[in-house]
């Protein structure tokens, strides 16, 4: 019975909040919000929007940063795969990169800021020896007006994501035989991969790339930490309007959210054009038949960019940890003069509340998401109908629609229902983002399960539920726990849903950390960001240890 409800519940949980939220955003944008006196439709908010100072620049920043971050991330992943897939170096780098997926965006962004700021780690390491700086230079590196550091912060976080989804697709594309084939035709490794294997991979990861683009054009937390300030990107300004004490600003904010939807849609349309252009130039080069045998430089570039991106995140996280335990630390000293736990002992009493909310929401959203995903997939196994493209697009929907565009409306609906700032509302909002990742993480191992086990169990007289509980779930313990850890990490990292739906009354580690960004107390930020990074790591550690202990007697499950 529960299993039969899997697909409708999953669809309801994914599409319901998005459609309701979009409606709740679009109606006020056109002036309709009876609670605030808007009883008739008008275009006033849209007329007001162009008059906002610097709005054109905000739009261009969102669009430009999103496209650049996506293009660079995809190119680095493609070049790295092309140059190194199937080598031992590849396996090593892959192990290095994988854990970065679980680092929340805000923590990675803080880490980058702590590295590249004028008084940051990099400046300290080279000063005063190379630069002669005795004081931090007066440069605007973080929050630069062009959004370059914002783009960099997005790139280092999207590369691990794109690499891991590409790896899943790579395994299905039988890369070894394809590589052997193009090599036998005399093509260099990189060109052979880009011509022969990459198109098949890209087709499979296209939705994930779209998700990266949609996220990068509409991100709020990373932009608040690293992005330009005068003006800020569109998404950051929207959230500012939304939080304005003057409630009539909500009309403007809603109109802005609709504009954000348009900006993201435009970015996707431009991206489709980029795809076409790339395919056409690939075909032209292919027809010329050039073999590109000497591709050592391209290979090194791919490896260098990939390692650099990983190093930046790790170095940033290490710097965060240093700051959280730093005593006196003057510029340009590379290390603090002394280490102290004072910041930790000061902050910890205050952090209990946010930490509790963070863990409760993450645990609840993850549990529900894993259960729904299992019911959905179990139903799929029973009916023998895989969801296909339609279902996949639906699962990606929450990742393709800009968060602000439907969260504004969702917040409004929750407010009207008297449901806002409650734990259930917060769990529901997180679930919209947790469920897709849990589902994407679990669906491949679930579908790879040998169906003949089910036939054997049935032949032994076991019911389908019994076969699920006694055979399938135990065998899939590890992937289920990994999917749960992924969901947990996603929930920990959520900023905008928490900010809007919790309305400041249920702060989490992430909302507190981002709120500290403008204050600039590096030691306190270090503590919050370090915890933010630590929680997902604990999740993944549990997902690794539990199956290893549970199945220590059984070799096939130890992996």
């Amino acid at each position, binding site marked *: 019975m529960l299993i039969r409800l899997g697909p409708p519940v999953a669809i309801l949980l994914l599409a319901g909040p998005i459609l309701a939220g979009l409606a709740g955003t679009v109606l006020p944008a056109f002036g309709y919000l009876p609670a605030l006196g808007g009883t008739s439709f008008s275009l006033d908010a849209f007329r007001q929007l162009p008059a906002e100072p610097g709005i054109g620049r905000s739009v261009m920043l969102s669009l430009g940063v999103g496209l650049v971050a996506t293009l660079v991330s995809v190119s680095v992943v493609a070049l790295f795969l092309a140059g190194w897939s199937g080598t031992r170096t590849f396996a090593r780098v892959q192990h290095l990169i994988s854990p970065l997926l679980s680092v929340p965006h805000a923590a990675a962004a803080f880490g980058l800021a702590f590295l590249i700021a004028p008084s940051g780690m990099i400046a300290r390491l080279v000063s005063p020896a190379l630069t002669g700086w005795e004081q931090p230079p007066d440069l605007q590196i973080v929050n630069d007006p062009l959004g370059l550091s914002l783009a960099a912060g997005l790139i280092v976080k999207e590369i691990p994501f794109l690499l891991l989804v590409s790896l899943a697709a790579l395994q299905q594309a039988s890369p070894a035989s394809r590589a052997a084939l193009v090599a036998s035709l005399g093509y260099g490794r990189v060109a052979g991969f880009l011509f022969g294997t990459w198109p098949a991979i890209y087709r499979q990861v296209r939705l994930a790339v779209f998700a990266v683009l949609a996220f990068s054009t509409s991100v709020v937390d990373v932009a608040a930490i690293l992005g330009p300030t005068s003006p800020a990107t569109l998404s950051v300004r929207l959230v500012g309007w939304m939080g304005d004490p003057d409630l009539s600003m909500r009309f403007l904010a809603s109109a802005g959210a609709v504009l954000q939807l348009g900006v993201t849609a435009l970015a996707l349309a431009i991206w489709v054009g980029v795809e076409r252009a790339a395919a056409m130039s690939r075909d032209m080069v292919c027809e010329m038949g050039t073999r590109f045998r000497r591709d050592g430089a391209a290979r090194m570039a791919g490896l260098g960019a990939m390692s650099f991106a990983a190093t930046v995140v790790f170095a940033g996280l290490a710097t965060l940890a240093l700051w959280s335990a730093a005593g006196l630390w003057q510029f340009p000293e590379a290390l603090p003069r002394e280490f102290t736990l004072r910041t930790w002992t000061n902050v910890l009493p205050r952090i209990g509340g946010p930490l509790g909310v963070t863990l409760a929401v993450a645990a609840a959203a993850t549990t529900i998401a894993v259960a729904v995903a299992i019911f959905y997939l179990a139903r799929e196994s029973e009916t*023998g109908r895989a969801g296909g493209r339609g279902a996949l697009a639906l699962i990606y929907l929450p990742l393709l629609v800009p968060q602000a565009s439907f969260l504004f409306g969702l917040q409004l609906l929750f407010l009207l229902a008297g449901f806002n700032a409650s734990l259930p509302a917060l769990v529901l909002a997180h679930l919209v983002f947790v469920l897709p990742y849990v589902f994407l993480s679990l669906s491949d191992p679930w579908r790879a399960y040998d169906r*003949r*086990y089910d*036939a054997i169990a*049935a*032949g*032994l007289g076991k019911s389908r539920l019994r076969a699920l509980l006694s055979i399938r779930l*135990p065998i899939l313990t590890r992937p289920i726990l990994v999917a749960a850890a992924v969901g947990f990490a996603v929930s920990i990292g959520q900023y905008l849903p928490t900010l809007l739906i919790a309305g400041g009354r249920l702060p989490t580690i992430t909302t507190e950390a981002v709120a500290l960004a403008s204050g600039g107390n590096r030691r306190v930020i270090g503590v919050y960001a370090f915890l933010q990074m630590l929680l997902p790591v604990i999740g993944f550690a549990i997902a690794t240890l539990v199956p290893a202990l549970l199945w220590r007697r*059984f070799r*096939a499950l130890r992996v």
Partner: protein
Amino acid sequence: MAALSRAARLTAKPMSEKGLILDRVTIALGGRQLLSITHAIAPGEVLTVMGPSGSGKSTLLAYVGGFLDPAFEGSGAVRVDGRDITLLPAEARHAGLLFQDALLFPHMSVRGNVAFALPPGIGGRATRRALAEEALAGVGLEGFGERDPDTLSGGQKARVALARTLVSAPCMLLLDEPFSRLDAELRQQMRELVFAKAKASGLPVILVTHDEADAQAAGGAVIRIGA
């Protein structure tokens, strides 16, 4: 009238018959008929279905066992000892299955695999353990109960799979090329063991294979499909 009553007698007669009866069992894929078989298999006897890969021979076992992929259309009646099982769910058919791979449950000990297959309601924990050990001894694996199935050899795994199937008190055996992964010597031993056990337990057997030697060892009727 006379014709009608004769027809009634004809259909009534198999009702009382022991063994497995396939009555116009037809399987099609997208409108294309893969096979159509009418055959009676007496207890302890083997029907061998031969065909090249892709001929749909495994779908016959799926139809009889009750786990045919919805992509296929199956029709016709399956009766066991006079009982029509065509519409029963797979778990009510008691079809003992052996595949190419042993498919032992990797999270249970060897004995755990066998005990899991014992019908519910037989004895307590100790009795079930003893019965499982006994079944293991019956396939020459005495004392292997505590082992992790992943540490067994291919031949040992195949024998555990056989023991697991036999203790579940099946009404029939459905064999899907169960010997093809074993090397030549083991294959012959395993054939003899499986067919001897089936005969001893009076189980009707359907064997699907593309190996002529399997068919010869089985010694029963042979139906060739496809090609």
